[in-house]
Structure formats: structure tokens, C-alpha cells
């Protein structure tokens, strides 16, 4: 069986390909982006005929995968943790459908917020939806569990989640790979009543899903992914690990000088019986979870109990940020390693920043200058490279909340009476979820200015292609009904600075909806295109 060095993301991608997917959809999002990049590259290189592409956002991506599943094909949909917030509507509802073509959702969480607004834990979503979640702990498992997830999806007729975190997504190891399974034949779902959630039908499906839970619990209760190692002679404490917590625990195990009983959970719903068996022989349970204390909270419950529990909720393990081999040591009674060497001088931070020559820098200069001519102003912003406008030297923006929020927030602030209000948003973010709040603004004639920072790429995640090119965006904005004379195009270059400031000022003064499209290609994406001879 061939061996390959693969990122965790790539192992999942190859696992899905070998499991016989026909379709793959996603919106870029760190740390999940590389899964779909691998699939797209594989598709191109091997002419594999997969229906694989980027979508405008995670909701449309999920629905597109559902479409493939509806006609019997295996489909993969990938996103980062906050992306699942966007896809939550089709996701939660899809658990009620009769899934025949295996549907696997891969969510990559970001504990420690390396590139995200929060560190929310997607296992809650699987629990909420009532489906199986598999959580690999290394690249080999990532490869194998993906194939298994498709089998489980078709066995239980539910979508299945695979949950990973940044350290696995972006870490490389050797993976032994297997053969290629054939793709499913095209076959519409046999009973379309189970795909229509009219209340009368949905009630039946919901009852069905609830009844399925005991079978899902039976699967995870006996699954080899939930490994219980008992050591009855050791009664001081037992350890429960989930996700990468296992790896850091095993890294420290030799230092313990003994082997405590250990339950590792990689398949959810939580295997209750195994948890009970672990807890029954010990005075204390230490829960080492990468993510929120989901299992820990279950254990603690509400009613008083004798068992002592150490974990994030009582700060035995740091409640925020990602786990590492050092920060779990105190909970295990191990001293933290003495640091023998210190630099002996203070080291300045080196935060990320806009590339030299980035068009956003020029746009922010324009915004700062124009805003500076008003007594007060608000500049909202959004998710993307331009979010770095919050940092020096620009410090041009004031809100960053979630994809597409800039326009709605600006509308709300403007209608509450503040003026002038400027919303800054990237072209891809605009297509993701900035269109609908602009529709709202036009419908209400809100006095606000939207600056679409169009670098014609999805930059922060590595330069993926956008869904609509610049001229299409302009037509879209016209189509929504923004007055033609208040749609302005500027090129963010130093030589245009004076003129651009004048244009922005004019539109900030205008008491209606105005849109300024600031167009200049991302330098990194342009470089990538030149390197690959124009085939980006």
C-alpha cells in the first residue's frame, strides 16, 4: 500500500477521494482550505471528473453537497468552525432527511484562534443535530475515518461530521493509503417524502431521528475508536482524552511513572458505558479535551456526586487556547519543565500585516483621509486580509465580527442616527454574505457608503478564485438598485490618492446608499498566476 506524506487536511481529502466521492464543495476557511485545494488539484491532474468547486459560502456549499447526496452520490463538504454557523440551517435540517448518498461534513476548528474570531467547538453541532461525529488524532486516522464516515452515513442515513483542529489540519506525517472504491450510481432518493420537511412530514422524520439515537450510541459504545484501557490497581485517578488531548497525554505518560486507566473518545455520541466503567474504579477523573469542555460538562452534570473531576471547568487545565504538551502537565501532577534559557531581553512582537504594496493599504489611506474631514465617523469592517487594517499603521476600521457583518452593522448604526457610516468589505466576503444586507439598505434608502475592496481573490486563505469577477460585481450592485451615479469605481494607487479621497468624501456626504468599488488585483495572487503560467 503506497505511503505519502500528507497534511491532516490532505489525508482527509485523499480519504474522501478513495472512498468514492463524486462531489466536493466548500468555502475557503483556515484551517480547512487545503482539503478542497487538494481535491481540486487531484481532479485537475488526474482528470477525475469530480464535481468539485468553491462555493459562495458554506450554506450554498452544504446545500450543493446535499443535492449530490439526494441523487445517491457521495459528497464531501468542508469548512472552518465558524463556517458551520453559516451552514447551520441546512446542516441541522439535513439530519432529518433520509440520506442515501453518503454525506460527510468536515469541520476544522481553531483552538487558540490562530486565524479566527473564536474557538467554538463543532462537536456541539453534531450533538445538537443528533448525528455521529468522528475525531481523528493523527493523519492516518484522518485518512481512514473519512472513508468510514461515508459508510456510516449510508448505514444510518444521516450526515456524518468529521471534526479536526488546526494542529492536525496543518501537520504532516506519513500516511499509508488504500485502494479506490467505486463511485455510487446515480439514483434519486427512494422516498422523497423524507426530503420534504413540511411540518407533518418533519414530525415523522424527527421521531425517526430520535429513535435512531440508541443505534448511534450502540455504534459508538462498541467502536474501536473509543479506546478504554483499564488498570484496576491504579485508583487515584483516570484520564479521559478527546482529540489531540490524547497525543499530549501520551507524550507525558512516561513521566507519570505509572499507567492510569485511560478512555479516549474519538467517536460521538459520547460512549456512556465506557465513561461509567472508567469512572467507577477511580477517585478522580481528569478530562483533557481539545476544544470546549463538552465531555467534561456532561460528566459534571448538575446533581452532586462523589467523583472529583479536573479539567477546564475548574481551571486544572487552561480553559482557553489550544492544548499543548506543557499546559496539561499541572493537571497530571507534573512540574512544568524549568526553562533553562531566557533571551534576557524583551522581544517585540511580529504580528501579521498587509503585504508591501497591497491595494488595501491605499484604500485605507483614502478612507482615513476622507473620514478625517468629518467630525466623527464609523468605519465597519469584515473578515479577510483587509481586517489587518485594524493594526498600525492604518488603524482605519472599528468592527470585525463575522462574514458579511460590515454592511448590516453599518446600516443599523446609520439608521440609529449616526453619520457618516462606511462599511468596508472584500469582494469575496461581499459575495459570501454582503449582498443581502445591501438589498436591505437599498430598500430602506439608508444613508451609508459601502466600499467593496475588490482584489479579485479570496486572499487571506491563499488566493482561491472568487465566484464573480469585478464587472459582474458592478452589475450585481446596479441590479440591486443602487443609483448608478452613486456607484463609483476607484483604483487604489498613490497617484490617484487625491481624486479617490474626493470621491469617497462626496459619497460619505450623500444621504443615501453609495457603493465604491476599489479595484486592484492582490499582489500575491497575481504572483501565483504568473508562476503557474496563468493557470492559477
Amino acid at each position, binding site marked *: 500500500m503506497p505511503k505519502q*506524506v500528507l497534511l491532516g487536511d490532505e489525508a482527509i481529502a485523499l480519504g474522501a477521494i478513495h472512498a468514492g466521492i463524486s462531489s466536493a464543495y466548500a468555502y475557503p476557511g483556515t484551517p480547512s482550505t487545503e482539503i478542497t485545494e487538494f481535491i481540486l488539484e487531484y481532479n485537475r491532474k488526474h482528470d477525475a471528473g469530480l464535481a468539485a468547486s468553491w462555493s459562495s459560502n458554506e450554506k450554498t456549499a452544504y446545500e450543493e453537497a446535499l443535492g449530490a447526496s439526494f441523487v445517491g452520490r457521495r459528497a464531501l463538504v468542508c469548512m472552518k468552525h465558524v463556517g458551520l454557523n453559516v451552514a447551520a440551517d441546512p446542516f441541522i435540517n439535513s439530519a432529518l432527511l433520509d440520506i442515501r448518498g453518503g454525506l460527510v461534513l468536515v469541520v476544522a476548528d481553531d483552538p487558540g484562534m*490562530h486565524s479566527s474570531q473564536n474557538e467554538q467547538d463543532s462537536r456541539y453541532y453534531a450533538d445538537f443535530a443528533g448525528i455521529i461525529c468522528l475525531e481523528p488524532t493523527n493523519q492516518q486516522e484522518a485518512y481512514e475515518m473519512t472513508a468510514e464516515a461515508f459508510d456510516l452515513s449510508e448505514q444510518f442515513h444521516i450526515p456524518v461530521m468529521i471534526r479536526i483542529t488546526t*494542529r492536525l489540519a496543518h501537520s504532516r506525517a506519513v500516511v499509508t493509503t488504500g485502494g479506490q472504491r467505486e463511485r455510487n450510481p446515480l439514483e434519486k432518493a427512494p422516498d422523497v417524502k423524507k426530503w420534504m420537511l413540511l411540518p407533518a412530514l418533519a414530525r415523522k422524520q424527527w421521531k425517526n431521528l430520535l429513535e435512531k439515537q440508541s443505534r448511534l450510541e450502540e455504534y459508538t459504545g462498541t467502536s474501536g475508536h473509543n479506546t478504554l484501557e483499564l488498570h484496576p490497581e491504579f485508583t487515584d485517578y483516570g484520564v479521559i482524552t478527546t482529540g489531540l488531548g490524547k497525543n499530549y497525554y501520551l507524550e507525558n505518560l512516561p513521566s507519570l511513572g505509572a499507567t492510569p486507566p485511560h478512555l479516549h473518545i474519538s467517536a460521538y455520541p459520547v460512549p456512556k458505558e465506557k465513561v461509567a466503567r472508567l469512572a467507577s474504579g477511580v477517585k478522580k477523573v481528569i478530562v483533557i479535551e481539545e476544544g470546549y469542555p463538552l465531555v467534561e460538562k456532561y460528566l459534571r452534570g448538575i446533581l452532586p456526586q462523589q467523583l472529583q473531576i479536573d479539567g477546564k471547568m475548574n481551571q486544572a487545565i487552561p480553559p482557553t487556547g489550544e492544548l499543548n504538551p506543557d499546559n496539561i502537565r499541572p493537571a497530571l501532577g507534573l512540574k512544568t519543565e524549568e526553562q533553562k534559557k531566557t533571551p534576557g531581553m524583551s522581544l517585540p512582537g511580529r504580528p501579521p500585516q498587509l503585504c508591501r504594496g497591497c491595494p488595501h493599504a491605499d484604500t485605507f489611506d483614502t478612507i482615513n483621509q476622507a473620514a478625517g474631514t468629518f467630525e466623527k465617523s464609523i468605519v465597519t469592517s469584515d473578515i479577510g486580509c483587509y481586517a489587518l487594517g485594524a493594526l498600525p499603521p492604518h488603524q482605519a476600521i472599528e468592527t470585525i465580527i463575522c462574514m458579511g457583518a460590515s454592511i448590516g452593522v453599518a446600516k443599523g448604526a446609520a439608521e440609529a442616527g449616526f453619520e457618516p457610516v462606511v462599511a468596508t468589505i472584500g469582494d469575496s466576503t461581499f459575495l459570501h454574505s454582503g449582498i443581502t444586507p445591501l438589498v436591505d439598505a437599498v430598500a430602506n434608502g439608508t444613508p451609508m457608503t459601502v466600499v467593496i475592496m475588490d482584489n479579485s481573490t479570496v486572499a487571506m486563505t491563499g488566493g482561491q478564485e472568487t465566484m464573480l469577477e469585478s464587472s459582474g460585481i458592478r452589475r450585481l450592485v446596479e441590479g440591486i438598485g443602487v443609483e448608478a451615479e452613486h456607484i463609483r469605481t476607484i483604483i487604489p494607487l498613490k497617484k490617484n490618492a487625491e481624486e479617490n479621497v474626493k470621491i469617497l468624501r462626496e459619497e460619505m456626504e450623500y444621504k443615501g446608499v453609495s457603493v465604491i468599488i476599489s479595484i486592484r488585483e492582490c499582489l500575491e495572487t497575481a504572483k501565483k498566476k504568473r508562476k503557474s503560467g496563468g493557470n492559477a
Partner: protein
Amino acid sequence: MKYDIILAGVGGQGVLSLAAVIAAAAMEEGLQVRQSEVHGMAQRGGAVVSHLRLSDRRIEGDLIPKGGAGMILSMEPLEGLRYLDFLSSGGKLVTSSDPVVNIPDYPEMEELLSVIRKNTEGIVVPSESMAREAGSVKATNMVMIGAAASFLPLRKETLEAAITGLFERKGADVVETNKKAFALGFESGKQAG
């Protein structure tokens, strides 16, 4: 046998190609390898760090514990110091002396180099000038691998073969330049060590 390496630098300096060469050589010698990095925001001219773990046994985690690294190999002097608490007591700091000054409060080079030499017995390599001598300023990564080579638990020949493998596609000239860069770095590292 286990050997953990912290690779450091600034986004855009090719820290990951350091990892690629060392990892390829390690696998060629039959070792287990784990290499972790951070994409996304970290690329934008910010600090970049990668954990590279080599072992003849199963490797449990992707992250190196504090005080566990046999080496910090850095493309940039400030970044070399940033992860000092990961260095084991016998570990080696091997760093380029060429600074990337893209922040307003970058320390004085003299202070930085003196701290590196005195506090850490670190090896400082003028990677840019050596790369130029070898034939291309782009070969700084291979200079640094050369400098590290004497201390890595890998054969020099395996590393050279990994370099050839990485650059083959770009032609014999490119391979030669990078091998020369490696050789210059190797001499420097051996002497200083």
C-alpha cells in the same frame, strides 16, 4: 532516538522548505517524522514557526514540549530567540544573521547578536552573503540547512540528496547552486560548532 527541531522565521522566508528537506532526508533514513505549521494569518509577514519531530519510534504529538528541542533553526535572528524556551539544555540555536526589519521596534542588531552568542552559544550564519556566493540570494534556506547539518542526526549525503530531489525539476544549475549553498553553510556550522 528522538530529535525535535523548532524552525522559525518570517512569513515568506521559506521556513517550510527547511522542513521539507530535513523531513525528506529523515524519512529516507527510515525515521518517523511529524511536522506542524500554521497557515492563514501567519503568512502575512508575521512570525512563522514550525515544529519538526524526528524519531525512530512512534511520535505521539505534533507539538514539541518546552525544553524539548535539540535545535532551533531560524531564518531570522529575532525569530531565533523567540522560541528559546523550547530549547533543551544541550540544544543548539542556529540562525541567520540577516534581519527582516518590518516592525517599528526591531532591536539593535548588536544587542541581538550578542544575546544570541552569549546567552545561547548560538551559531550565527550570514546566510544572504553565502547564498550570493553560491550563486543566488534565493538559496538562503539551503545555507541554513548546511549550517544545521553537523548537529542533525542525519547523514550529510542524505540531506544533499534531499536537496537535489527538491530542486531537480528546476534544472542542474539550480541544484548546483543550492548544493553549493549547503556546502558553504556546512563549513560555517562545523567551524562554529
